[in-house]
């Protein structure tokens, strides 16, 4: 059989080099489009005109309604962290470091990553589904014809709400996470409450907290951008909107983990 007469998929399957080339190009194009989308939204967020009502509404949706999810995740992570550190520490007779390592792990790493990942599911997918539904019901076209640019009216408020709200949520997650570790240590492992809390407060530095909050700003941006980007590109039909939500969630989660590593190494370089 000649190459030309084979169906497209067969031809690609029998030629892995071509397949790899195609896939690479598709990924590069997607990254390029995402970068352009991010820049236009960031620019719109930094310049007037702003829609304060929209920003406020998004802050409530993203922030306030995420409190239960974030609080529950943080308390369990803090509790599990304390248990593991206790077990590991006891091998060296270093159990007394539980409060120090819990607060370090929560503020620099776990509070913000867990919050980011939970919001990738709750918020990023939610934004993608909402924007996707607006795209396929022509509401986004309608916005344009009524002289409101979707980038300013829909996407910039979500982006701003994301980068403002995530740090606030992370502060709450940090506190609740530390309290989860404290509760397990005091009620389960026999720590003295006052000593535990004093060790926590004495040990944690402004830098530890700042590292988490800087990451939170970045993650907040990722969550909002991925939701808007995939919603905006959503195609018609029930599956189109569902796919947009899935892509947004998975994409945001992967980017969050990747940027968590990048930022962590950057902070190490900077000695933070």
């Amino acid at each position, binding site marked *: 059989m000649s190459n030309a007469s084979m169906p497209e998929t067969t031809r690609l399957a029998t030629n892995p080099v071509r397949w790899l080339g195609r896939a690479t190009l598709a990924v590069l194009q997607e990254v390029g489009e995402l970068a352009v989308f991010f820049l236009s939204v960031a620019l719109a967020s930094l310049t007037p005109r702003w829609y304060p009502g929209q920003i406020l509404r998004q802050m409530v949706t993203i922030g306030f309604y995420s409190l239960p999810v974030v609080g529950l995740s943080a308390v369990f992570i803090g509790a599990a962290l304390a248990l593991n550190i206790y077990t590991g520490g006891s091998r060296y007779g270093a159990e007394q470091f539980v409060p120090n390592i819990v607060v370090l792990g929560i503020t620099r790493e776990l509070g913000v990553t867990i919050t980011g990942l939970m919001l990738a599911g709750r918020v990023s997918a939610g934004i993608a589904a909402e924007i996707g539904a*607006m795209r396929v*019901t*022509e*509401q986004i*076209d*309608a*916005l*344009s*014809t*009524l*002289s*409101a640019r979707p980038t300013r*009216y829909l996407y910039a408020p979500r982006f701003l709400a994301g980068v403002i709200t995530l740090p606030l949520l992370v502060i709450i997650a940090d506190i609740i996470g530390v309290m989860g570790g404290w509760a397990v240590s005091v009620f389960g492992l026999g720590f003295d409450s006052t000593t535990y809390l004093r060790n926590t407060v004495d040990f944690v530095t402004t830098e530890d907290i700042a590292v988490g909050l800087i990451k939170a700003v970045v993650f907040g941006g990722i969550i909002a951008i991925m939701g808007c980007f995939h919603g905006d590109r959503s195609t018609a039909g029930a599956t189109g909107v569902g796919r947009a939500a899935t892509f947004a969630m998975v994409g945001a989660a992967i980017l969050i983990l990747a940027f968590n590593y990048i930022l962590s190494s950057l902070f190490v370089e900077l000695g933070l």
Partner: protein
Amino acid sequence: MSPPLLMLQDVRKSFGAKPVLDGVSLDVAAGKSLVILGGSGTGKSVTLKLILGLLRPDSGRIVFDGDDITFSQGKARERMRARTGMLFQSGALFDSLTVWENVAFRLLNSERLGRKDARDRAVASLKQVHLAPDVADLRPAELSGGMQKRVGLARAIVGRPELIFFDEPTTGLDPITADAINDLILEQTRALGAAAISITHDMASARKIADEIAMLHAGRIIWRGPASAIEASGNDYVDQFVHGRAVGPIQPAL
């Protein structure tokens, strides 16, 4: 003869390898009503989106009131959109806003009218489409399909446009509601003295609201004439469409 309000010259548009419009030329004079007929998926909605700048043509020219707006963006595009109104196929009402905020959207967000004045104008606009003031505070989801079309129409006319686009205004409505919408379209475009471009595959609607009819098929306008000539067009494609026959030169899109 006065120059046309809107003119399309040899407009082409493909999506990927699929050509949708293959050289469409059209024009409509101020105050006149043009209906574009065509089967499902022939590119009727795409034509309107190209005119409104929601999509960009591959080539060709689109001229509005003497200005070339083919690729215009920013201020020039805003000026054009401020002088036009659009009733979307799916209504496209914003479900997070109330009915009156939908109708007054342009007034609130673009013309920066105060909420009280904007609401008054929205209610007046709703009254013109025969909707009572008490629907003003409902959400679009609480309305029937026919009422949503009316709200969409109220939103399209509230800015006193010179040209209104109707994308399948009667699709999905029962014949009685559809006829009421046709009446409203006639009534409101006449009251404004506005030109209209309507796209439809509903012959009853076309007969009622058209001054002129054009037929879009295979990416081109294959026939155009006064509405009164549609029965005797002498064109096999138009005849098949007008009489709704499965057999003829047009293959049913199955």
